[in-house]
């Protein structure tokens, strides 16, 4: 495995297969979630990351276990890439107490303290000030760590986007902003909500070094993320990556997608990260059909075990309802 | 049931103890052994019959109604009981 802190990517075969497997794990996990949702096993809201897998996987290669990661309600891919086991994640989707958040958060609120994964946050932009704070704590305690925060281009319209980027630049905080620009904030196309549609230019307004990256190319993402993370870790202040991407499915499960036409969706599917990277591996002879089948079978096995774990999970007893509202049980 | 309280003093104490059980509100009062129980302690007929029932349970002595007047004081009661038990 390549060293996360290394500024350059050494693309050997192992690393390439690792990238593909990580993206496929996300893809297959979420496809199954869509099915489980129609069977009412998963309830509430479900926001799928299918089509954007390259960003989470690419950036996660550049983070050490001590770094912090914070994301939005579309965070299954980030959580998986950050090492959350499929079992506890699926149990959380079922609302079982064996879930990573004891079943209380569900799809939008996956937390995993052991890998400093500070969750899904369901208020658009709400995570940005938290990321600032986490980075501030690192800076004040002299720890060479990176706080990577993932958010959609919709957050750029929130006041907290401006307040957070300004604070990060003003205090030169070790934050890696990763904007996943998938062109639609729920039902509103980017052109209809932002005067400046190039989000990375907004970031430059705060004198933050920022660039735009092809979000469908996992290699491009990893190269850009390595460079940015290294700078952040070295104390050169915040960095901003705008990753151009596209979600292949609806905003959430209950969305007639009237706001975009099918041709556009199909066009982006042709440039999908898993499709493209898969073809590239075959063309370069790094992976043959049998190898690919073995990877898929391994993932299927992991997924089946995760579902069994969730199915056999238990409901949190009602008596524990108020547990952990405060740290000690209230007298 | 052979009464364990064989001596007169023990009989008097037992009688006093049972009297207090029947009328707990007498607990603080000192009851001279020769005081007339009915007059000085304002015992009424219910207290009396409960007291006698208690003595019956404790000492196995069945005191007929005709003998009630002979239990005028604690001393008299002790003598009566000793006579009944001494045989």
């Amino acid at each position, binding site marked *: 495995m390549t060293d996360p802190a290394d500024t350059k990517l050494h693309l050997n075969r192992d690393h390439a297969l690792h990238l593909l497997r990580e993206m496929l794990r996300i893809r297959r996990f979420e*496809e199954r979630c*869509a*099915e*489980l*949702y*129609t*069977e*009412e*096993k998963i*309830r*509430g*809201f479900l926001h799928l990351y299918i089509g954007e897998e390259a960003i989470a996987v690419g950036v996660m290669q550049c983070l050490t276990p001590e770094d912090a990661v914070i994301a939005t309600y579309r965070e299954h891919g980030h959580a998986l890439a950050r090492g959350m086991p499929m079992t506890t994640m699926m149990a959380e989707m*079922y*609302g079982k107490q064996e879930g990573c958040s004891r079943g209380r958060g569900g799809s939008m609120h996956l937390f995993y303290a052991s890998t400093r994964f500070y969750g899904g946050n369901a208020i658009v932009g709400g995570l940005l000030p938290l990321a600032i704070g986490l980075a501030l704590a690192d800076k004040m305690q002299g720890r060479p760590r990176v706080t990577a925060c993932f958010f959609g281009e919709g957050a750029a319209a929130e006041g907290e986007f401006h307040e957070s980027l300004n604070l990060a630049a003003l205090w030169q905080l070790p934050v890696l902003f990763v904007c996943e620009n998938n062109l639609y904030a729920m039902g509103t196309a980017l052109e209809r909500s932002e005067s400046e549609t190039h989000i990375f230019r907004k970031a430059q307004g705060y004198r933050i070094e920022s660039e735009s990256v092809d979000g469908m190319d996992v290699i491009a993402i990893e190269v850009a993320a390595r460079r940015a993370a290294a700078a952040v870790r070295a104390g050169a202040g915040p960095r901003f990556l705008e990753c151009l991407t596209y979600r292949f499915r609806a905003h*959430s*499960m*209950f*969305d*007639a997608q*009237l706001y975009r036409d099918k041709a556009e969706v199909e066009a982006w599917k042709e440039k999908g990260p898993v499709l493209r990277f898969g073809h590239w591996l075959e063309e370069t002879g790094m992976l043959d059909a049998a190898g690919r089948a073995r990877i898929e079978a391994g993932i299927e096995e992991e997924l*089946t075990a995760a*579902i069994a774990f969730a*199915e056999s999970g238990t*409901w949190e007893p*009602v*008596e524990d*309802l*108020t547990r952990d509202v405060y740290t000690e049980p209230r007298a | 049931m052979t009464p364990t309280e064989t001596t007169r003093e023990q009989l008097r104490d037992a009688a006093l103890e049972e009297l207090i059980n*029947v*009328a*707990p*509100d*007498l607990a603080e009062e000192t009851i001279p052994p020769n005081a007339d129980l*009915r*007059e000085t302690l*304002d015992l*009424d*007929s*219910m*207290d009396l*019959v*409960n007291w*006698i*029932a208690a*003595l*019956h*349970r404790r000492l196995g002595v*069945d*005191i*007929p*109604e005709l003998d009630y007047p002979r239990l005028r004081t604690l001393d008299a009661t002790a003598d009566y009981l000793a006579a009944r038990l001494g045989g």
Partner: protein
Amino acid sequence: MTAVYRMPSLGADMEAGTLIEWVKRPGERLAKGDVIAVVETQKGAIEVEVFHDAVMGRPLVQVGETVPVGTPMAELEIEGAPPKTGAAQTGEAAPEPRETAQAATAERPPATESRAERAASGESRHRASPAARREAERRGLALDDLKGTGPDGAIVLRDVSPAAGKAERGATAAEGPAPRRGLDLAAMREAIAAAMARSKREIPHYYLSQTVDLTPAGDWLARRNAELPPEQRVLMGVLFIKAVALTLRDFPELNGFDRGGRFEPAAGIHVGSATAVRGGGLVAPAIHDADQLSLDALMDRLRDLVARVRAGTLRSSELSDPSITVSSLGERGVDRLYGIIYPPQVAIVGFGTPRPRPWVLDDQVVPRTLVTATLSADHRHSDGHRGALFLAQVGQRLQEPETL
């Protein structure tokens, strides 16, 4: 193998969907992810997909039909066994949202009729503060005996007992007899004073007395008790109570309450047995349905009440609801006693001390054990004539003790 395609759940708040178009015809191949149909929901038309390669089978729902989530819509031929998570076998359902632990189980608030309804029904519910209500019950006072000085004439704490009105600044034990557990003598003295003063002030008493030959009852009781151990012996007072209780069945106008001048008959015959409290004070706890109890049962009830008076563990409810009171001062009493009626009751029966006295029997003057029974009654609700008949019948019943 044949499987079933069910109406998928497409959102947190979706219960049902309307089929508007079959995209696939029976027999057509379906690849994983292909759209099988279009379903109308509140949010518009949504293409629904299959999650496994399959061949379209027989449709089970017609276009235009609205069906709940989970309803079988079409049969499918699936190559190979799909991983078994199918909607059919649902895991155990989430627990019913029982009352959450700390959400107060709000019982339905007691139906509070409006004041108008109550006024209409004639029963005037007393406006009293909760503290006043509780103190009155503790003291065995009926609210309608008290005059309210609070807002709109509501009864407040100071109306129930002047002492309680002010915060109990240290027990008033210093002057009065030591307060025993349970029965607060000072408070009791005041309560008796208030009740007796009101009784004398408002109730027009008439008084009757009747001398009764108690010898037959006395002999009968002595014979009966002689054969019994002390625990089962019965006191003469019990015979008095039973005689009064049985007689009251024929004289209901003596067994009830005065409600603002109007007579309210009691639901049962609950005899208050006046019992002196050592150190001063008097209570008349009720023996409920005394007319239906055997002599032995009455004796046990009386023994229990007296024991609890002595120990001060009397329940307040017992203090407040006798329908008539019987007072007898026992062996060391007086020949005759005239009681004062306990409001809101309308009568009180007294028994003097039974004593041997001369009595004319078959033209002979002979010594007999005699007792004087008295009746004080509220002339607003009964007259002397009826009172006299009542006393005579009580005397007559005592001549046949075996019938009690």
